């Protein structure tokens, strides 16, 4: 059990770190493109690569952001109902969230499969095979689906989820 726990937590962390590295990649790509232009060189496909890094930064970060409470939700009802009811509501939210993300991941898998099967190439100057950057949708979507399911199981078994917020403004509560 703890082995699974540790593996999952490690995956959420490592995906978050990868997403952060993608932000650095975006910065470097944009800077490289500007420098290329100032010096009369060309960097074909730079905007396309930056776009892929953007998608990777988002998809890989979803699960990590979920566990850190970064994704927002309307919690008026959740905070005003008694704890038994709250548990039911949380189960509903995590179950529905998991259903939506698993649905997305399932379709994304087929989508990428067809990109690979059709040999779909980027329409930009990069001429990248599209299944390569698109695969992060499957990885990131799958991971956030796992994270939602993980939390769902936790709510059912222990009555609470595993999301912990650590925003700097936490000191202030209304």
């Amino acid at each position, binding site marked *: 059990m703890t082995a699974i726990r540790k593996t999952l937590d490690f995956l959420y962390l490592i995906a978050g770190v990868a997403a952060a590295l993608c932000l650095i990649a975006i910065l470097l790509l944009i800077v490289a*493109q500007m420098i290329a*232009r100032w010096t*009369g060189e*060309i*960097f*074909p496909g*730079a*905007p396309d690569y930056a776009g892929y890094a953007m998608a990777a930064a988002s998809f890989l970060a979803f699960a990590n952001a979920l566990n850190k409470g970064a994704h927002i939700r309307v919690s008026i009802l959740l905070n005003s109902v008694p704890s038994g009811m709250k548990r039911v509501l949380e189960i509903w939210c995590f179950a529905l969230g998991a259903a939506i993300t698993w649905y997305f991941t399932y379709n994304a898998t087929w989508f990428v499969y*067809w990109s690979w099967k*059709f*040999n*779909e*190439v*980027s*329409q*930009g*100057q990069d*001429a990248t095979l599209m299944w390569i950057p698109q695969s992060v949708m499957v990885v990131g979507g799958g991971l956030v689906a796992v994270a939602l399911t993980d939390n769902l199981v936790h709510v059912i078994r222990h009555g609470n989820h595993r999301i912990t917020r650590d925003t700097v403004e936490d000191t202030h509560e209304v």
Partner: protein
Amino acid sequence: AETWDMPMAYSASNFHSENGVAFAECVGAGTNGEITIEVHPGGSLFAGADIKRAIQTGQVQIGERLLSGHQNESAVFGFDSIPFLAPSFDDSEKLFKAARPKIEALLDEQNLELLYAVPWPPQGLYFKKEVNSVADMAGVKFRSYNNTTSRLAELTGMLPVTVEAAEISQAFATGVAESMVSSGATGYDRKVWESLTHFYEVDAWLPRNYVMVNQDVWADVSDANKSAIRACADAAAARGLEASKAYTQFTMDGLAAGGMTVQPAGDALMGELREIGATMTAEWLEAAGDEGAALVDEFKAMQ
């Protein structure tokens, strides 16, 4: 009765979109309301780059796309965007006639049925200064958006700068770019006379928008309705061609009224550009293989 969703990439007032709406009305009438087409212009359903795949996979039944956008997939799709191969409306029609069977075969493999294609006004060169020869272009920052335009910049000694379509106006206003190759229509729509001064009608190429149907959908259409739709498509092709010609003149006048110098390129410049065109045709032929060679031979035989 069934309804087809038809995504189109350009804004509702663009002549391609207006032509598409007229085509849709024709289909509604011709099939006695058995097939109605709902046009979604301006990328209000799918963005331009997504439309082909959306039709292919059956997300929508029909749609319009600039096929040269897909030349990374197959060089043959870029036949209508080879610089200076068919530099006039008449030549462009001949070239399309030569290419049509090959394009249809290629689209067939992709689960697509071609209905009609309409050319954009010819591509000309925009500058911030007078240009009389390729030498005058040296070092000018040239907006490139694909391999063809980058190569064109390289061969003319210009500096290719990548500027996305959404940032064209701003890029010219701030000097990020100083030149581009595009139709008079783009320059007119984006009101480039606010930053640029010269437009040379070099008629580099006339890229086309293609209206295509998903083949699974097409197979379920009755023969009577198929011929009604084909008739509407032929009418749309003819109407679109005339609209494109009329719009070319309209936008040239508009650019001039905006204060730009609008003129054909001088003989010296045009000669140099044709040489560059020959180089680029040869390069395209290398990429497009036998299919491409057959297509160009057939086109040359028609002249």
